[in-house]
């Protein structure tokens, strides 16, 4: 089966500076596929290139090297008409619902305009009916109450639901959600993730879920796959639950062991994998070997010399580490 999206050796380099050019390697040589109706989570710390990767997947920025394929076709070689058909099939949900909605438009306008644009309703009444149906579907009820509200009348959680409703209008096949819950209240986070899960289940929409932490990733991408990013490369990739139960890469082990857990006893007794250094190397001057070598407690001489490639370690589970087989056995730090 042709995957929905495929990235082949994709790199993105940003150039900064006018007199002396500085090259920032945001994404380096990434290969991945997303099947129809699949969930892929991309996890990494700030500056690892996860947002850039999301934009590459969504076809918003052009890769410096490599190809991005949509149903087998290179999106940057598509004819104008083809691209126009592809474009609405990928939608984005941004981190900041306060910035992604026009403050001068009402809810009815925010949702009604794209409905008209895509020719999905003929009369005013029909637009209104469609908007009401959408609001009800994303849990903004009673819908009539919301129609004439402006974004500033809504809480962060409601705004994010509105952004979800808007993303649904062109009937997308893929939604790229970049940290969708990081700016909303904690008691509302799970219900927003439940809403996104429902879109996945009921409408068969594929998701790329971008996050800086593994807890919400586990909740949302439980049945899907996760890619761990570090300094622009994927260092580990596989089914989400397997990565959390049986992490291999020392970076993934470190962040798993340091994740705060909502349990006082476990939080106090677990042992965190100590790193050699806290500081991340600059993406301008990358180390020649393994990008994690400067912080890895297990590093050896080969790690300084050669960049490890992402390779299978068991079925469906890939790791970019020279010494993956020789690492000590993983014992969850929260187990006694």
């Amino acid at each position, binding site marked *: 089966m042709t995957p929905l999206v495929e990235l082949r050796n994709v790199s993105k380099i940003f150039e900064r500076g006018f007199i002396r050019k500085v090259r920032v390697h945001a994404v380096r040589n990434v290969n991945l596929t997303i099947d129809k109706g699949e969930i892929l989570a991309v996890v990494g710390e700030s500056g690892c290139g996860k947002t850039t990767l999301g934009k590459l997947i969504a076809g918003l920025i052009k890769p410096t090297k490599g190809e991005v394929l949509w149903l087998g076709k290179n999106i940057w070689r598509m004819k104008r008409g083809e691209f126009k058909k592809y474009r609405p099939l990928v939608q984005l949900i941004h981190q900041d619902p306060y910035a992604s909605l026009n403050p001068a438009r009402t809810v009815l306008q925010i949702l009604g305009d794209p409905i008209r644009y895509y020719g999905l309703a003929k009369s005013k009444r029909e637009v209104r009916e469609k908007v009401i149906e959408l609001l009800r579907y994303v849990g903004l009820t009673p819908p009539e109450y919301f129609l004439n509200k402006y974004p500033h009348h809504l809480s962060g959680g409601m705004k994010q639901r509105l952004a979800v409703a808007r993303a649904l209008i062109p009937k997308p096949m893929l939604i790229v959600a970049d940290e969708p819950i990081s700016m909303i*209240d*904690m*008691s*509302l986070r799970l219900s927003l993730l439940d809403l996104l899960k429902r879109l996945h289940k009921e409408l068969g929409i594929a998701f790329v879920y971008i996050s800086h932490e593994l807890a919400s990733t*586990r909740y949302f991408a439980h049945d899907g796959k996760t890619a761990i990013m570090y300094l622009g490369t994927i260092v580990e990739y596989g089914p989400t639950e397997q990565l959390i139960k049986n992490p291999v890469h020392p970076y993934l082990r470190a*962040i798993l062991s340091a*994740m705060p*857990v*909502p349990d006082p006893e476990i939080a106090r007794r677990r042992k965190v994998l100590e790193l050699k250094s*806290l500081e991340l190397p600059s993406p301008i001057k990358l180390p020649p070997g393994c990008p994690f070598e400067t912080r890895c407690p297990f590093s050896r001489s080969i790690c300084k010399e050669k960049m490890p490639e992402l390779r299978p370690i068991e079925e469906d589970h890939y790791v970019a580490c020279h010494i993956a087989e020789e690492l000590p056995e993983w014992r969850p730090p929260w187990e006694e």
Partner: protein
Amino acid sequence: MSEENPILRVRDLVVEYAVREGVIRANDHVSLDVAKGLVNALVGESGSGKTTLVDAVMGTLPPNGYIRKGEIYFKDKNILKLNPEERRKIRWEKIAMVFQAAQNSLNPVMRVAEHFIDTVLAHKSMSKDEILRKAEELLKLVRLDPEQVLNAFPHELSGGMKQRVIIALSLMLDPELLILDEPTSALDVMTQHYLIRTLKEVHEKKGITMLLVTHDLPVVAEIADRVAIMYCAKIVEVGDVRKIFYEPLHPYTHGLIHSIPSIIGDLSKMRPIPGEPPSLLNPPPGCRFHPRCPYATEKCKKMEPPLVEVEKGRLVACFRYA
């Protein structure tokens, strides 16, 4: 937090803001004890009034905010009755505060050493050598290399390092209480972990009382001794950290703890709290949690449950318990 010897006692505090749409009551008869020598956590979502409470203590309310009623005692002094100069002295010498996103509060054109000198000289007369010697000691305590850091400009340091500098800076005048507002938000997992560890070490070595204001329950589980939960301008539950996490009493606390995604535990037991937090402009009558509460009765819709002590050191505002 009814400890034998609270260092800070807030009594029946009412704080309001005048806004175009009317009056927002952000602290509605709030009483809270901060236990001496412990790590106290004040937990609430945005708009629950936790930052207002801290602003009232520090005297940093915005111009449209005012204290309508109540007392705030630091040890035995009602600090609301002090004159501005006395208040200022308490503010940085006895109670220090690390603000949210504090890493951005360093002056970009001043070297780190100058920040230490300026801060101390604003309150005390001390020689520069003495100040720098003390700064070195504190920077070591927060695990920074004093030589490297003191001569650096803020932009030369990472976010996590700046956060540590601010904590060292806040300890320069030997405060008795350190208030930290969302110290871990916007930090990466590893940076956050090392910061929590630093705070633990500072607490152990200096015996300083801490008040951590946060929405991040996993961080609370890791560091706090005592926890107070705030919802919609009111304190709804207070207790020891283990009691709060293992035997939450208030339905809101219970809902909150079960709505946090985690890398451990059973996914099927995680479930969201239904509904939305109410607006402070128009809070629901009776118990403010009743529209979202699975146990709400007619009484809850009409009467406000008082915060009562149900066992020693354990307070809850819910009709199921009183």
